[in-house]
């Protein structure tokens, strides 16, 4: 792959008091790649993602992003409770002063794209289920047509079936939108299934593994039973255990 790198992380260090959260993390992520970051709890996965998003300043080191501001999907839906679904989805456009005439059409289009119905558009977050709220959160991230999408364990609070369903939908979004995705998870099988590449952080905040996932581009659930999938999952798990 000789594409430009969408995200360049250069010698990133993060120190909270005497605790080292990230230790000399460097990597290049080419445009259009789906990269997952796995690691034990508290190893700095989320901190790394927040540094990439510019939400947290690293102690030393730099992050360079190509293109415009990234979109971020948080672990919680993080919706404004006093705004309707439509109001929440169009928030980024308002903040960027990009409101357009046919905005409501665009909002509806995006909402339907992530599996919401036209009838849901005027509902308030409190009237929606957890999965639906997450869909609103994803729609809000996609409304600005971002080139980089950052996901911080977005479906951790949902049940397994719903999670797989939403992951599958995210994959479709990624396929059709030519985005670069950085996905933080603690679930190895999920990371392998979704990604083209898996980065492993160890408990000391060091990048200790970088595994290419050369599975077929078209990810269907049946892939989970192929020898290659099992082999990659085992490889990532082994690196994780070594890093503990």
């Amino acid at each position: 792959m000789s594409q430009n790198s969408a995200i360049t992380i250069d010698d990133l260090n993060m120190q909270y008091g005497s605790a080292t959260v990230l230790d000399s993390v460097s990597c290049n992520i080419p445009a259009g790649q789906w990269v997952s970051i796995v690691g034990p709890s508290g190893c700095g996965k989320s901190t790394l993602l927040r540094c990439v998003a510019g939400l947290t300043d690293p102690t030393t080191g730099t992050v360079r992003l190509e293109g415009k501001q990234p979109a971020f999907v948080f672990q919680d839906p993080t919706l404004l409770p006093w705004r309707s679904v439509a109001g929440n989805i169009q928030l980024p456009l308002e903040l960027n002063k990009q409101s357009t005439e046919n905005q409501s059409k665009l909002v509806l289009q995006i909402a339907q794209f992530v599996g919401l119905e036209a009838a849901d558009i005027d509902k308030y977050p409190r009237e929606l289920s957890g999965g639906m709220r997450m869909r609103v959160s994803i729609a809000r991230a996609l409304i600005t047509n971002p080139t980089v999408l950052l996901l911080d364990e977005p479906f951790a609070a949902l049940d397994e079936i719903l999670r797989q369903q939403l992951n599958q939908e995210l994959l479709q979004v990624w396929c059709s939108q030519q985005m670069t995705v950085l996905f933080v998870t603690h679930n190895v099988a999920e990371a392998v299934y979704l990604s083209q590449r898996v980065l492993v952080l160890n408990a000391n905040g060091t990048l200790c593994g970088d595994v290419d996932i050369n599975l077929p581009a078209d990810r269907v659930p049946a892939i989970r039973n192929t020898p290659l999938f099992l082999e990659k999952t085992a490889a990532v798990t082994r690196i994780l255990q070594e890093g503990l």
Partner: protein
Amino acid sequence: MKTKPSNSVIIYPILFLLLLLALWQIADWKWDIPRIILPSPWEIGTESFKRIDDLLSATLITAQAAISGFALALVIGTTLGLLFSVSKIARLGAYPYMIFLQTVPIVAIAPLIIIWFGGGMASIVVIVTVISLFPIVTNVTTGLRSVDKGLLDLMTLYQASPHQVLFKVRLPNAIPYLITGAKVSSGLTIVGAVIGEYMAGHGIDEQGLGYYIFMSSQNFQTEILFASIFLSSLLGVTMVTAVAVISRTLLAQWTFQLER
């Protein structure tokens, strides 16, 4: 979505009140209690009815003072809350004195207010403002500051201006808190108005319930004293109910957060 209160919620208190009034009336007949000490319900009723016009206009005047002071407290309280949420120096420096203001008994500062604002409506309104300010300031300040961190991250991500953060996140977030503060304050407004009128309501034509409480106790018109006490309480309940109803209808979008 809310369940309607069943009739028993209304009927039982009324039955209890009637029972109490009957016992009171019977006790008055049986022991012949002097009306200066404890007039019977019948005596209170007939005596008040003779002066119904005076008492009703007094109630309206007290209501007017309470509402004016309350409006002023809402404006000043929200402004101070904004200041405290924006400026750390203002918060650290001045906020403790808000608590001081709350702990000083209102009857202790009322004479000072009367010296400054004269013996009339202006002083009464200021006393109402002072007594109802604190719950509004504290609640609004808390509401502006206790915003979900994730929402602030979202604002940072999209490079929102401080202006956008205030109007799109902080102020809407503070509205349920403002409602809570206003509910607490609305009951206090009548306390403030009656104390103000008691101390400053003599020299003017508009004489409120506090004035009647003062005069009737001086003249041993105990029936009028009872009627004024009853009307003051009724006014307090009305204020609290009015604030609850207004917030539920005008700000329905926000009140759900309180009812959870």
